[in-house]
C-alpha cells in the first residue's frame, strides 16, 4: 500500500460514521437503480413470457400462396440464422351436426403441421400429446367434455373445401358492387400496398367467417365440396386456441402430415442474432421472396428487438426518468459527503502537500477513497436492490400478473446481466463524478492556503460586509436577529454564523426542504390516487348487479309481482344478500317551466331536451318503481306520508322526484340541478296514427325531425317495390349530424313516435296525423338524495311505489329489472363463486317471465371483482410509490444527516474557542438549537410550501375528471414529513454534538491547531 493509500485508509477509519453514511448513500443509489432496472427487466421478462405462452415464440410468419416451395423450406431449415421452423397448412373443413355447431363452431377446421409448433405456436395439449404420426389428431377440449371422445378413440371426418355460393333460388341472380356492399378481403403486401379481393360465388373460402344468407345482411351461402372421409386416432386435447391455429369458423383439429405442395402454407420462423424488426422481415423475405410477412411485433419488442413502438419508448422513458431522479438525488448525497469530507481535511491535504505530496498523489488519495466506497457500496447496493425486487415481486407478483394478462405467466423478479452492469456502472460514475470536483479543487489549492483554509474558508462575501457594518460604534452586538431575540446571546451567535458563513447552512436547509418535498409528494400522490379509487368504489352500490328485460311486457301488477319474485329468488342464493330492486323505464315527459332546473335544458348534458311548447320543456324522464316497502321508508326519510301515494288512477299518479343529478359537462363530474319545484309533469305514454301504434316515443330536435321526415317519406314511397334484403332505413342514430346543423341547448323539440315493422325496419308515425295519450304525474316532493338502491342518476327521475304500476296506464312502457346484491358477511364463498351461483340461479329466477316471452337480455355484473381489480391496482401503484418514496426519503435524510453533522464537526474548533472564552454548555446547546430552528425555518417552510403546491397540482389533476372532492391540506403528511425530517435533524445534531463533546476544549484546540 502506498503512503497516500495508507493515509486515506486511516482517514476513512478515523471517520467511520461519515464513511458509513457515504457507503450507505452509494449502496442506496445502486439499490434504487437496480430496483428500477430490475422492475423493468422483470416486467419485460413477464411480458415476454406471457406473449410466449399466449402466442408462441415465432418471430415472423411467411404466408405462401402455394407450398411449391420445398426448396425454400429446406433452405430455411438449414439457414444458419434460423433457429426454428414450423409450418401450418389447411387440410380442409368438416361439417358438424347442429348440436356440435353450438360449441365447436360451424366447421371442424383440419390443419396439418410440421416442426415444433408446441413452442413456436404455443399449442400445448392439456391432455395427451401432440400428433406425430400420420392419422393422429389433436382435438379441442370440448370434443371430450361435450362429445365424450377419449384418447385412443377414432373419429371420422368428412373433410372438404368451402365454396361460396348464391342462396337457394337465387342462383341465377348476379350481384354486383353497384347493387350492394359486397364482402371484401383486404391484404397488405410486404410493400405496404393494400389489395382488395371481392367475394364472388365459386370462390374457395379458408379460415374466414361462415356465410349465411338467412342472417340479417347476409348475401351468400356456402357449401362443402370435394369432401373425403378421413379417420383419425385421437392422441390429445388442447384447451387454448392460439394465433397459429385459430380459425373463425370453428375450433381447429391438428394432424401431423405431409405438406401439400399445391395449397397455401403458413411458415413460422424464429431467428437468432436479429437487431431490429426490419432485419427480421428482410431475413424472412430472403428465404421466401414472394411471401406475405407478418411479424410477431409484441414478442420482438419484449425481446429487445425494437421496432418503432411508441409504448416501448414511453416505458423506456419512464425508466430513464426514474433513473435520472435517483442519480440526481444520489449525486447530491455523495457529492456532499465527499465535499464535506475533503473540506474537513483541507488542512491535512495542505500538510501532505507541504511535505511534498504531488497534486497527482492528492487526487489519487481522493480517488482511492472513492474507489473504496464504491467497492463496498456497489455490491451491497446490488444485493439490496435484487433482494428488494425479489421480495416485492414475491408479494405483489400474483396481483400484477392478474391485472396485466390474467395469470398467463408468473410475475417474478428477473434480472439481466446488462441491467446489473448498467446499475453498477452508473453508480460508479456517480461516485467518481461526485469525487472528481472536490479532488480537483483540493489539488489546486496551495499548501499554505490549504492549511489556512481550515479556519478561514467559510466566510461568504456578504459575511465580510456584514462584519464591517456591525463593527461601527454603537452597532456592536446590536443586530440580534430574530434568533437573538428569542434565544438571547446564543441565538445571536447562531444568527451571525448563518449570515456570514458560506453555503454550509444553506446546504442543510436545502437537504431538509428536499426531504420534505419528496416525502410529501409521495404522500399526496397516495392521497389523491386514493380518492380516485374511493370515487370509483363509491359509485358502485353493491357487489353484484343483475339486470334483465323481457320483450312485449308492460308496466303492470303482474310484471312487478314477477320481478319481486325473481328478486327474492336471486336473493336466496347462498352467499348473496339482497340490497333491493327497481324497475326502470324511460318516458318522454313534458315539464312546466316553473319546475325546470338550471341544468336540465343544457343540451350538452342529456342529449335532447328543449322547448316543446310555450312554457313547457320536453325531455326524457326516468320512471323508477321501488318495491312498496322500500318506497315507504324512502318517503318516510323525506318526511312525506307514504299513504298519499295510494291515490292512483289510470291517468294520474303522485310521485317523488330527484332535485339533483350527476352530470358530466365535459369537464367535471358534478351534481347539477334538474328540478327546482314540485308540480305536475305530463308523461307521453302512447301515440297512434290510423290504427298504427307506436312502440317507442322519443324526442328529437325540430331540425332532426324535418330531416327524418324527408327520409321516411321517400322510404315509404319506395317501400312497396323495395327488396327487403339489405334495405336500409333511416335510423336516427345513423343520420349524419352535419345535416342536422348544430343542436344547441334549449332548441325546440318535437315528439317522434315510431315502431318496427315485420322487416325490423323503423317506421315513424306521421306527426300530422298522430294522436297522443298522456298521464299526469304529480310531483309531491323533491328529494335531495336518490334512494340508495338507485345510485347516481341524471335528468328527470320520478320515483313511485311498484304498486302504482297496477293502476297507472303506461301503455307499451316496459320497465327493466335491476336487482342489487351484496356478498353476505356470513359466507365463506368468494365473489366469483357467488357470481356463479347467481348466474346459475338466474334461469330459474326468471323462468316465469321467460316462459311467457323471450328475454331481451340478462346481465350480471360482478362489481365486487371489478372493485377488487381497482383496489389491487391501487395497492400495486401505492406499494411502488411508497417503496420509491421511502428510498428517496432515506437518501434525502442521509443527506440531512451528512450536512448537519459535518457542519457541526467542521466547526469543532470554533466551538472550543468559544467555550474557552466562557461559552457555557447551556449557551452552546441553545446556540445549536437556535441554528437548527434556523435550518428548519429556511428548509421546512419552503419545503412544505413547495410540496403543498405539488399536492394542489395533483388535486387539480384529479378534479379534471372528478368533482365533489374538496381540497384539504394533507396535514397528516405535512406532520409526517416534518416529523421525519425533524427526527433526522435531531439525530444528526445529537451525533454531531456528541462528536464535538467527546474531546474536551484543550484537545479540540490542540488537534485542530496542528
Amino acid at each position, binding site marked *: 500500500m502506498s503512503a497516500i493509500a495508507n493515509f486515506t485508509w486511516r482517514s476513512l477509519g478515523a471517520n467511520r460514521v461519515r464513511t458509513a453514511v457515504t457507503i450507505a448513500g452509494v449502496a442506496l443509489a445502486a439499490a434504487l437503480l437496480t430496483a428500477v432496472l430490475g422492475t423493468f427487466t422483470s416486467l419485460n421478462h413477464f411480458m415476454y413470457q406471457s406473449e410466449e405462452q399466449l402466442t408462441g415464440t415465432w418471430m415472423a410468419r411467411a404466408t405462401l400462396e402455394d407450398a411449391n416451395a420445398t426448396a425454400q423450406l429446406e433452405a430455411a431449415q438449414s439457414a444458419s440464422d434460423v433457429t426454428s421452423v414450423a409450418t401450418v397448412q389447411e387440410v380442409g373443413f368438416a361439417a358438424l351436426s347442429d348440436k356440435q355447431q353450438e360449441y365447436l363452431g360451424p366447421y371442424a377446421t383440419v390443419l396439418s403441421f410440421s416442426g415444433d409448433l408446441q413452442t413456436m405456436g404455443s399449442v400445448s395439449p392439456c391432455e395427451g400429446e401432440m400428433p406425430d404420426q400420420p392419422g393422429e389428431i389433436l382435438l379441442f377440449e370440448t370434443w371430450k367434455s361435450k362429445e365424450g371422445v377419449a384418447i385412443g378413440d377414432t373419429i371420422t371426418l368428412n373433410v372438404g373445401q368451402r365454396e361460396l355460393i348464391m342462396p337457394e333460388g337465387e342462383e341465377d341472380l348476379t350481384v354486383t358492387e353497384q347493387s350492394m356492399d359486397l364482402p371484401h378481403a383486404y391484404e397488405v403486401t410486404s410493400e405496404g400496398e393494400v389489395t382488395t379481393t371481392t367475394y364472388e360465388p365459386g370462390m374457395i373460402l379458408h379460415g374466414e367467417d361462415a356465410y349465411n344468407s338467412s342472417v340479417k345482411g347476409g348475401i351468400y351461402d356456402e357449401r362443402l365440396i370435394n369432401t373425403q372421409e378421413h379417420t383419425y386416432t385421437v392422441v390429445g386435447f388442447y384447451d387454448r386456441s392460439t394465433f397459429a391455429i385459430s380459425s373463425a369458423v370453428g375450433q381447429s383439429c391438428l394432424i401431423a402430415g405431409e405438406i401439400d405442395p399445391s395449397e397455401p402454407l403458413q411458415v413460422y420462423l424464429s431467428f437468432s442474432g436479429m437487431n431490429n424488426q426490419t432485419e427480421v422481415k428482410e431475413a424472412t423475405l430472403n428465404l421466401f421472396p414472394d411471401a406475405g410477412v407478418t411479424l410477431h411485433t409484441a414478442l420482438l419488442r419484449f425481446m429487445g428487438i425494437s421496432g418503432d413502438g411508441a409504448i416501448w419508448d414511453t416505458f423506456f422513458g419512464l425508466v430513464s426518468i426514474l433513473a435520472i431522479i435517483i442519480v440526481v438525488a444520489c449525486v447530491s448525497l455523495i457529492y456532499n459527503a465527499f465535499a464535506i469530507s475533503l473540506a474537513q481535511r483541507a488542512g491535512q491535504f495542505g500538510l501532505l502537500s507541504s511535505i511534498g505530496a504531488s497534486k497527482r498523489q492528492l487526487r489519487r488519495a481522493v480517488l482511492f477513497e472513492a474507489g473504496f466506497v464504491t467497492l463496498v457500496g456497489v455490491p451491497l447496493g446490488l444485493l439490496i436492490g435484487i433482494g428488494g425486487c425479489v421480495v416485492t415481486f414475491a408479494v405483489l407478483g400474483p396481483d400484477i400478473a392478474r391485472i396485466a394478462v390474467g395469470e398467463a405467466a408468473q410475475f417474478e423478479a428477473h434480472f439481466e446481466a446488462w441491467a446489473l452492469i448498467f446499475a453498477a456502472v452508473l453508480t460508479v460514475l456517480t461516485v467518481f463524478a461526485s469525487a472528481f470536483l472536490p479532488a480537483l479543487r483540493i489539488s489546486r489549492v496551495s499548501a499554505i492556503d490549504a492549511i489556512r483554509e481550515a479556519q478561514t474558508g467559510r466566510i461568504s462575501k456578504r459575511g465580510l460586509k456584514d462584519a464591517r457594518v456591525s463593527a461601527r460604534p454603537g452597532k456592536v452586538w446590536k443586530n440580534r436577529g430574530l434568533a437573538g431575540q428569542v434565544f438571547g*446571546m446564543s441565538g445571536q451567535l447562531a444568527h451571525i454564523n448563518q449570515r456570514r458563513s458560506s453555503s454550509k447552512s444553506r446546504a442543510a436547509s436545502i437537504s431538509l426542504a428536499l426531504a420534505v418535498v419528496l416525502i410529501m409528494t409521495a404522500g399526496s400522490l397516495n392521497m389523491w390516487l386514493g380518492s380516485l379509487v374511493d370515487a370509483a368504489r363509491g359509485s358502485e352500490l353493491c357487489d353484484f348487479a343483475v339486470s334483465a328485460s323481457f320483450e312485449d311486457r308492460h308496466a303492470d301488477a303482474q310484471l312487478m309481482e314477477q320481478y319481486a319474485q325473481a328478486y327474492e329468488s336471486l336473493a336466496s342464493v347462498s352467499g348473496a344478500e339482497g340490497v333491493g330492486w327497481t324497475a326502470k323505464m324511460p318516458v318522454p315527459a313534458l315539464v312546466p317551466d316553473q319546475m325546470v332546473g338550471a341544468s336540465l335544458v343544457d343540451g350538452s348534458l342529456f342529449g335532447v331536451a328543449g322547448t316543446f311548447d310555450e312554457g313547457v320543456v320536453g325531455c326524457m324522464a326516468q320512471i323508477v318503481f321501488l318495491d312498496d316497502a322500500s318506497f315507504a321508508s324512502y318517503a318516510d326519510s323525506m318526511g312525506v306520508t307514504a299513504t298519499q301515494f295510494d291515490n292512483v288512477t289510470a291517468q294520474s299518479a303522485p310521485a317523488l322526484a330527484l332535485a339533483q343529478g350527476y352530470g358530466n359537462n365535459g369537464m367535471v363530474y358534478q351534481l347539477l340541478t334538474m328540478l327546482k319545484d314540485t308540480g305536475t309533469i305530463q308523461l307521453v305514454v302512447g301515440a297512434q296514427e290510423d290504427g298504427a301504434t307506436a312502440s317507442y316515443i322519443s324526442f328529437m330536435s325540430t331540425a332532426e325531425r324535418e330531416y327524418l321526415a324527408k327520409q321516411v317519406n321517400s322510404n315509404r314511397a319506395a317501400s312497396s317495390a323495395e327488396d327487403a334484403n339489405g334495405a336500409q332505413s333511416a335510423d336516427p342514430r345513423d343520420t349524419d349530424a352535419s345535416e342536422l346543423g348544430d343542436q344547441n341547448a334549449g332548441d325546440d323539440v318535437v315528439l317522434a313516435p315510431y315502431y318496427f315493422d315485420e322487416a325490423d325496419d323503423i317506421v315513424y308515425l306521421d306527426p300530422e296525423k298522430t294522436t297522443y295519450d298522456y298521464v299526469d304525474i304529480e310531483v309531491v316532493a323533491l328529494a335531495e338524495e336518490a334512494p340508495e338502491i338507485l345510485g347516481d342518476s341524471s335528468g328527470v327521475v320520478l320515483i313511485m311505489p311498484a304498486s302504482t304500476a297496477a293502476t297507472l296506464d303506461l301503455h307499451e312502457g316496459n320497465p327493466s329489472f335491476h336487482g342489487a346484491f351484496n356478498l353476505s358477511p356470513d359466507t365463506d364463498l368468494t365473489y366469483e363463486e357467488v357470481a356463479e351461483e347467481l348466474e346459475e340461479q338466474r334461469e330459474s329466477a326468471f323462468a316465469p317471465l321467460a316462459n311467457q316471452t323471450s328475454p331481451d337480455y340478462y346481465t350480471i355484473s360482478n362489481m365486487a371483482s371489478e372493485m377488487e381489480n381497482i383496489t389491487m391496482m391501487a395497492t400495486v401503484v401505492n406499494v411502488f410509490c411508497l417503496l420509491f418514496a421511502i428510498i428517496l426519503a432515506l437518501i434525502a435524510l442521509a443527506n440531512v444527516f451528512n450536512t448537519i453533522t459535518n457542519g457541526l464537526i467542521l466547526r469543532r474548533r470554533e466551538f472550543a474557542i468559544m467555550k*474557552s472564552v*466562557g461559552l457555557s454548555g447551556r449557551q452552546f446547546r441553545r446556540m445549536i438549537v437556535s441554528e437548527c430552528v434556523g435550518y428548519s425555518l429556511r428548509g421546512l417552510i419552503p419545503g412544505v410550501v413547495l410540496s403543498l403546491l405539488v399536492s394542489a397540482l395533483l388535486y387539480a389533476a384529479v378534479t379534471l375528471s372528478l368533482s365533489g372532492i374538496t381540497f384539504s391540506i394533507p396535514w397528516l403528511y405535512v406532520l409526517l414529513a416534518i416529523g421525519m425530517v425533524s427526527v433526522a435533524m435531531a439525530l444528526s445534531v445529537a451525533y454531531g454534538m456528541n462528536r464535538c463533546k467527546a474531546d474536551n476544549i484543550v484537545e479540540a484546540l490542540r488537534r485542530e491547531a496542528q
Partner: protein
Amino acid sequence: MDILTVSHLSKTYGKGDTATRALDDVSFSVAEGEFVAIVGSSGSGKSTLLHLMGGVDRPTSGKVLLNGQDVYARSDEALAVFRRREVGLVYQFYNLVPVLNVVENMTLPVALDGRPINQDRLQGLLDKLGLRGKEGYLPSQLSGGQQQRVAIGRALMNAPAVVLADEPTGNLDTRNSHEITQLLQDSNRDFGQTLIMITHDETIARAADRIIAIEDGRIVRDERIRS
C-alpha cells in the same frame, strides 16, 4: 497578596498502561500583579498547567484557587462563567472565532456574560493594540500579528484577575513577537495585570518577575528575578 494558588495539582491523560502523567503534584502561588514566565521543553506539561489554571480542563487531583476560590469546585456552567470573567487566555494559534469581526471577537466574553461593553476600555484597547480602522475585519483578513493582538484584546477586555498566555509569540516573526510581548508587559506594568506566560524565548522570560521551569510534569526551578 496571592491571587492564584496551585496546590498539589496533577493531571493524567489516558488510562492503565497508556496513562501519561502530564502534571505531577505541582504547587506554587502567584501574587497579584506578578508577571510569571513558565519555561520547559516540549511536552514538559507547561501547557497542561496553563489550561488547568485557566479552567478549560479539569485536574486529576489537586486544587487551583483564584482570588481564594476553588476553581474546580464549580459546576461546568459556573466554570464557563469563571472563564469569561476571571481569566484571559491567549494562545499560540490566536483561536479567534472566524465568523466574528475584530470587536466582536474582543468583546465576546463580555457579550456572553450579558454585560454592557465598556466602550472606553474597548476604544483604549483598539488604540493600544493598533487595531484602529480594523474593527470590522474578520480574522481571515488579518495577519498573524494582528490576529494575536485581537486575542490579547479579548483577554484584556474583561480586566480579568489573571491573563494566561501560551507561547503567544511562537507563531510570529521577530518584530511582531517583540511588539506582542511589549503589549503584554505594558498591561502588566501599567494596569497591574497579573500575567502568566509560557515561552521558549530566553529574552521574554528574562523580562518576567519570576521564572518557573517545568520538566516531566514537575517544577524543577522557581526563580524570582525581581520583586
